[in-house]
């Protein structure tokens, strides 16, 4: 499904992602866990096309999307829930949801999002900027799902979110994967969340993936040690 092959990404002359490769299969939830400043957000920004590649290749369903602009990648089936949510603060919840949806907007799909996140239905006319962090996160996931993605990228979805909502998000991600047979790539610093949702786990350090574990065989203690400063 998503194939990342030897990619290099950086800011100016400073390299951040150094020759990273990984694959995420259909219906799989892949986690990338790492400390702050290890390159998680840079990786996700380059996957969606906000940052250009300095080398390597990204393919989606066998199609090379490395040179595509973000909106073209979305059209081909990639969607992102970025770090910090980045919802549109002056658009209503409903407008946020349909902002990237194909026209004519399917009200069935909107209802599907509302049933996943009932709070969004209650607040559909409220401005996105006036929601709490947890509500904004649900909105950001709903907005991404409205683009009918094949692969959903989530960059630190639990950042700044209260624990009860984090559990909801974990449950919903698994539900969405099962419903849509969706591929999900998620980055986090919180290992417990990753152990809950991911089928496969990578550890990122200094812009490279240094460890890969299946959830069934993961050694949580070792990974915790790697994540501690």
């Amino acid at each position, binding site marked *: 499904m998503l194939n990342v092959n030897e990619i290099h990404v950086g800011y100016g002359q400073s390299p951040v992602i150094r020759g990273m490769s990984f694959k995420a299969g259909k219906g799989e939830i892949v986690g990338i866990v790492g400390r702050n400043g290890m390159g998680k957000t840079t990786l996700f920004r380059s996957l*969606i*096309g*906000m940052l250009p590649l300095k080398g390597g290749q990204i393919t989606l369903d066998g199609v090379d999307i490395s040179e595509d*602009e*973000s*909106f073209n990648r*979305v*059209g081909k089936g990639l*969607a*992102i829930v*970025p770090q910090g949510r*980045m919802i*549109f*603060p*002056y*658009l209503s919840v409903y*407008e946020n949801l*349909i*902002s*990237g949806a194909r*026209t004519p*907007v399917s009200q069935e799909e909107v209802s599907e999002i509302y049933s996943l996140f009932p709070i969004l239905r209650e607040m559909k006319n409220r*401005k*996105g*900027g*006036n*929601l709490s962090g947890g509500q904004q996160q649900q909105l950001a996931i709903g*907005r*991404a799902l409205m*683009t009918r993605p094949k692969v959903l990228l989530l960059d630190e979805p639990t950042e700044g979110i209260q624990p009860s909502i984090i559990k909801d998000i974990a449950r919903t991600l698994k539900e969405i994967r099962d419903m849509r047979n969706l591929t999900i790539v998620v980055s986090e610093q919180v290992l417990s969340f990753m152990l809950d949702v991911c089928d496969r786990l990578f550890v990122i350090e200094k812009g490279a993936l240094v460890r890969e574990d299946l959830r069934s065989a993961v050694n949580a203690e070792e990974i915790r040690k790697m994540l501690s400063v």
Partner: protein
Amino acid sequence: MNLHELWSIFVMQGFAGISLFSVLLLMGLGLALIFGQMGVINMAHGEFMALGAYTTYFCSTLVQDHAPRLLPFYFPLAIVLAFVLSAALGAFVEWAMIRHLYKRPLDTLLASWGLSLIMQQTYRSIFGAREVTPTLPEWLMGSFKPTDAIDIPINGVFVLALALAVTGGLVIFMFRTPFGLRLRATVQNRAMSNAVGINTKLVDRLAFSIGCGIAGIAGAAFTTIGSTGPDSGSRYIVDAFLVVVFGGAANLLGSVASAFGIAQAQSILEFFLDGTKGKVATLLFIVVILMFRPQGLFPSKVRSS
């Protein structure tokens, strides 16, 4: 002065204010899209209005020379043509110049000022240095007299109706169409808009183009109340920016309220003082308000993150 005369003066003066409001509104609407929404300082905006005015003059001359019987009907078509030509030129200018200068406001200002000089000289070369006036259809001339003492010019009513129609159209376009939604999203967060699947470059081009098209409509409307010269655009540009900045740059309805406030203040002050003093007092009033509310009258508010 009896009560009847006082009432007539009140009605006429009120209409003068509303008339000025419609002129300011038409001037500001296109810029509300280009500067208010996109943040592009387009110093050539007035020249797009002049393009609309010259298009109307050209249509009028063409009809008068070749099909005088169509004279009563050409004006609405001239307005449509003014919109189409200004919008097409706007799309070309965005592609050729503006898109290379996003996030460089000073460069945009200088480049668009240069463009305004080129456009002025082009008008001078084609239409001459003298001001021109199209032949207006009969139905746009004369005045409406509800009583002997009240005299309301029909061209003023026409400009008002057109301003309200364009405003309504723009509000529907911005708040009830998928493109309007994409434009509002792009204005708020360009990178994220792209990342939710919006082609932001196309949005930029269409928004700039429609803003220029509205300027063209304004220019066509202004031929009913004044003549057009190569540098007519520069007369409009200050008022257009004033309306948008005073209303709150990113707020479309703020521009409407701003145009109304400025027009009424100016009209009332001109009645009690004189034309120049009235304008000076209005400008002073705006300067003082902007000192205390630099974000304009109607800034958008959301919870701070």
